[in-house]
């Protein structure tokens, strides 16, 4: 029964990993751009929420909503003002620019908030759990995180499949120039994709900050987990990313249970490398979004 418990914890943790990875997958899917600052932007969102709570005394939920809106706008402006200019010349430009952005965000956060660990307090919801059997209980908070992850991915998938704008995202992903000939402004589409990606990673960053402590250097680790989830799931598939996150989360918790603390991360990386070796295109291989 202990193993079932560990597996369920891992699965729920995987929801959070998937939430971190969704924006990364969306941006890659729509504009073939790798955003190395993605993890740091999630951590930045957690600090923005912390700052709003400390400065204006807003309750956590309202601070989170404000943060998500801020990150949406930051995403649009960042893409329109900077990242769009890095696209289309060669693949290394956006990588170098977002790598630089990652360093800037980390150091700016250290200057403003110090390198100390911080936390967001969601009250008693963090500690209560629902008892399934005597040995098996599921924490409400991890369960809520998992449900949010599924809801966000389902909403994004629905948007891409059905909405007029979602269709424009897919058309732009297929053929940027042909989409332009349909009257689609790809600069606007790319900026909206980044805006949505950062709104989602803001949700992930805030949930991470409630679940555990966070500090300015956490973004790099989050980026690695997000990459592992996206690649295991298959580039461009949102449900694949969820599955990739779940596999990663379960590998980590089961690894910790089997070999002791510290081994969880190693097992997670090893499972990722195994998937990469056996099935390099991921679980749901697709070359295009949705």
């Amino acid at each position, binding site marked *: 029964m202990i193993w079932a418990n560990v597996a369920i914890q891992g699965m729920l943790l995987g929801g959070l990993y998937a939430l971190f990875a969704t924006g990364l997958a969306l941006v890659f899917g729509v504009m073939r751009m790798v955003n190395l600052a993605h993890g740091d932007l999630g951590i930045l969102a957690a600090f923005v929420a912390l700052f709003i709570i400390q400065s204006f005394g807003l309750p956590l939920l309202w601070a989170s909503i404000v943060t998500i809106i801020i990150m949406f706008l930051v995403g649009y402006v960042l893409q329109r003002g900077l990242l769009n200019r890095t696209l289309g010349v060669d693949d290394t430009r956006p990588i170098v620019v977002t790598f630089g952005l990652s360093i800037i965000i980390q150091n700016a956060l250290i200057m403003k908030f110090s390198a100390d660990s911080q936390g967001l307090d969601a009250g008693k919801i963090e500690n209560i759990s629902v008892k399934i059997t005597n040995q098996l209980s599921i924490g409400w908070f991890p369960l809520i995180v998992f449900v949010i992850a599924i809801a966000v991915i389902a909403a994004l998938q629905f948007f891409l499949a059905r909405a*007029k704008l979602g269709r424009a995202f897919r*058309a732009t992903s*297929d053929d940027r*120039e*042909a989409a*332009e*000939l349909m*009257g*689609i*402004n790809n600069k606007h589409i790319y900026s909206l994709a980044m805006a949505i990606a950062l709104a989602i990673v803001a949700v992930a960053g805030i949930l991470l900050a409630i679940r555990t402590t966070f500090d300015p250097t956490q973004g790099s680790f989050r980026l690695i987990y997000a990459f592992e989830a996206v690649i295991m799931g298959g580039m461009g598939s949102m449900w694949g990313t969820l599955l990739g996150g779940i596999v990663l989360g379960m590998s980590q918790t089961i690894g910790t249970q089997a070999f002791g603390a510290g081994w969880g991360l190693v097992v997670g990386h090893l499972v990722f490398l195994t998937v990469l070796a056996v099935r390099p295109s991921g679980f749901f291989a697709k070359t295009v979004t949705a």
Partner: protein
Amino acid sequence: MSVVLELKDVDVFYGDFQALFKVSFEVEEGMTFAFIGANGGGKSTLLRTIAGLQRPRSGHVLFHGEPVDQFSAHKRVGMGIALVPEGRRVFPSLTVRENLIIGAYGGRKGDWNVESVVELFPLLRPLMKRQASSLSGGEQQALAIGRALMSNPELLLLDEVSLGLAPVVIKRIYEAMVLLVGSGHTILVVEQDVQHVLTVADYVACFLEGKISLEGKPGDLSSEAITAAYFGM
């Protein structure tokens, strides 16, 4: 007849390579204007420049007498200029219906909708739910033209629409072209295949190395003159 499109001394470069040299011409409303010429003559570049995918280094593109040089391609669609690009370029992961719907993204008003496009190209009717990548070349070409019509264009630019297609499909596409002109569209068509295009064109210009080497009404041009202009002999 009013002039829909006018080019004045248009020079277009790809980096240091000059693709078009001081190209000038006028296209009147309801006309079918054909550009013929060998590969690399600058025909596709010309259509891309009119559609806004390529910017002239000097000279102007005028639409209804107004310069459109500052407008990018996605804005020109809304003004009524639609390009069916070389190689069809349908959206492979979208269904046929989605490809058509996205053609209307700009929201220009007009008579074209999914139903009227399917009437023009009945071969698309059973394919509506298929992914565009699974279509044959001829089906994709019909889809690409239909998709462009969905934007309700005034000026339709067709780039090598017969390339690589079976003769029966080419015949159908040229029949459709005649119908389009009948319904008031102005068409610019680029072809390597001279025979077909001469049957529908009101006016022909032959491109050679980025310049117009011969132009006139098809009836006024001898096939010897066309051959000479085509190959630069």
